[in-house]
């Protein structure tokens, strides 16, 4: 037995709550067996979750670091590991290691700024951590605006939290949209990039965007039309990863490793990378 620890060897986590967010997204609450947070993190960082015998995968940490009791992960069912996670019951143990990656610069570049969050679908998962962090440290930031859209009302992640907390918070603006008309929805209908253009946010904001690649692409184009520069827009990326520490080679794009140099990038940083994501 060796005394040193190795980043590949995980800790045990216990799933203490499972919330059904949408037909294919659940949010899992995780603590260590003695009821503590597995580790501290910064908004935008990720963790490797695994079920021994099934596999290990990287997920963004959805809860804010200001939550001192537990961590949350909003996970969409789309592969082997996520299907297994979705079939779990409360009390199940999993393995957890992290935190990984470069977070959103909430204490430096973003501090004091007016922030605009734009999310599509499960893309809200990594941004929720930042949004709630900024709400908890409200005095450190200017205006907060969230533009969030999904396929349907039922596909809006964390909808209950949005209704109960965010929409009732008079110190932030929340604009929701769904792709197509739906019974029981009297809000905005249309794709996120178009809604952004309609809302025409002023360029005194710094933008954090996350969602499907196609949504990010058109949102960025729309923001540029509105006068935003790439230096004002951040995103967070997702690529296949195995180690999480820049060694296994999978998430290498150009001279960057998304797991350690990202997952958060400013768009002007992505300009110098090959278009392989």
């Amino acid at each position, binding site marked *: 037995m060796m005394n*040193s620890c190795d980043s*590949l060897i995980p800790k*045990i986590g216990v799933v203490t709550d499972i919330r059904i967010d949408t037909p294919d997204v659940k949010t899992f609450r995780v603590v260590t067996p003695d009821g503590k947070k597995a580790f501290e993190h910064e908004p935008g960082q990720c963790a490797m979750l695994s079920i021994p015998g099934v596999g290990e995968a990287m997920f963004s940490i959805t809860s804010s670091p200001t939550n001192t009791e537990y961590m949350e992960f909003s996970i969409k069912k789309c592969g082997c590991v996520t299907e297994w996670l979705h079939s779990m019951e409360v009390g199940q*143990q999993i393995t957890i290691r992290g935190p990984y990656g470069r977070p959103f610069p909430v204490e430096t570049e973003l501090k004091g700024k007016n922030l605009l969050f734009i999310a599509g679908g499960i893309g809200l998962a990594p941004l929720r951590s930042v949004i709630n962090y900024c709400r908890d440290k409200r005095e450190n930031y200017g205006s907060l605006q969230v533009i969030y859209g999904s396929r349907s009302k039922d596909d809006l992640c964390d909808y209950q939290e949005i209704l109960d907390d965010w929409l009732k918070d008079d110190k932030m603006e929340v604009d929701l949209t769904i792709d197509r008309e739906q019974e029981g929805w009297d809000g905005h209908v249309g794709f996120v990039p178009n809604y952004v253009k309609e809302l025409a946010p002023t360029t005194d904001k710094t933008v954090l965007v996350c969602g499907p690649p196609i949504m990010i692409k058109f949102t960025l184009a729309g923001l540029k039309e509105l006068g935003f520069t790439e230096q004002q827009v951040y995103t967070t990326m997702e690529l296949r990863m*195995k*180690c999480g520490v820049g060694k296994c080679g999978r998430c290498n794009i150009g001279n960057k490793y998304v797991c350690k140099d990202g997952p958060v990038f400013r768009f002007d940083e992505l300009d110098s990378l090959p278009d392989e994501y």
Partner: protein
Amino acid sequence: MLRIKLDRIDELLAAIAKAQTLYLPVDRSDGQAEFRKWTEGARLSNALNTVRSAKDFFFPQTEKLMEFKTEGKKIEVVDTREDCEDFVIFGVRACDARSFEILDKVYLVDPVDTFYKNRRDHATVVTMACDRPAETCFCHAYGIDMTEPGGDVTCYKQGGYLYVNANTDKGTRLVETVASLLEDGDTAELEKAKAQTKEIYAQLPLAKLSMDNFGGDKMDEYFNSPKWKELSEACLGCGTCTFICPTCQCFDIQDFNTGHGIKRYRCWDSCMYSEFTKTAGGQPRPSQLERFRQRFMHKLVYFPANNEGEFGCVGCGRCLVKCPISMNIVKVMKALEEK
């Protein structure tokens, strides 16, 4: 310099093997050389290089990372790491010796990979200077001197003698354990022989190969080159180049359920495989062109960009010999250089 007559080299190997586990290149029945554990009667191969590189000693093709015990909803992580025993790798060529330094730049940087470091710490690397380089050799392009391969101990064959020179404390300790077999010898002839080896090398086809047109600043120039299509067209995606390459170090992690416990393994992987980057959400490198380009861009541009100009290649020439479609890094470099 200390030396021993070449016809007594078996005695030297046996003496080393008595002190520590010894690995050395031996000839297989098919005439190709590979590193094997020393056993009584093992003969040191005269081959220029082994089929597989020496990276296997520090980054094995498959290794167990940990085990898990599960019971109901409970999981236990079993840390199965153990300190490995001291061992000696004898007969490592200059190219492979350099590859260890390149692997170090991945595995020994923060966070240190303890599996790799454990083996690295316990190994004594005994190199063998080259005296008859092959047509596929191009180590000089990376500043490697094949006649001075480095490592903890350097060995040189000359005039019926094996010369032995310790370069590090670890090397000195190893040489001390076999000191009774060694005698002092004059090195004048050895220096002449080294110069002759370099003359032979200068006549070889790749002796003029230069890396001047490659490096960390060449991304825009080469990534969008139209040459990738033609270069990658015949690539089978077999991954042979990756597996025999001394510097390729990408890996996969997979769990294996034994029926009475789960073991997590690390295994070699290849960026030449479609599964490497495939996710539930899509495939950022959909065809062999992108995968092929990744492998060479990483060695010639991305790795040097992150490692003060050091390339992810040592010029061992294995891929020139083994690729089933005769594609290789030299052809890629030459094609990219054509404007």
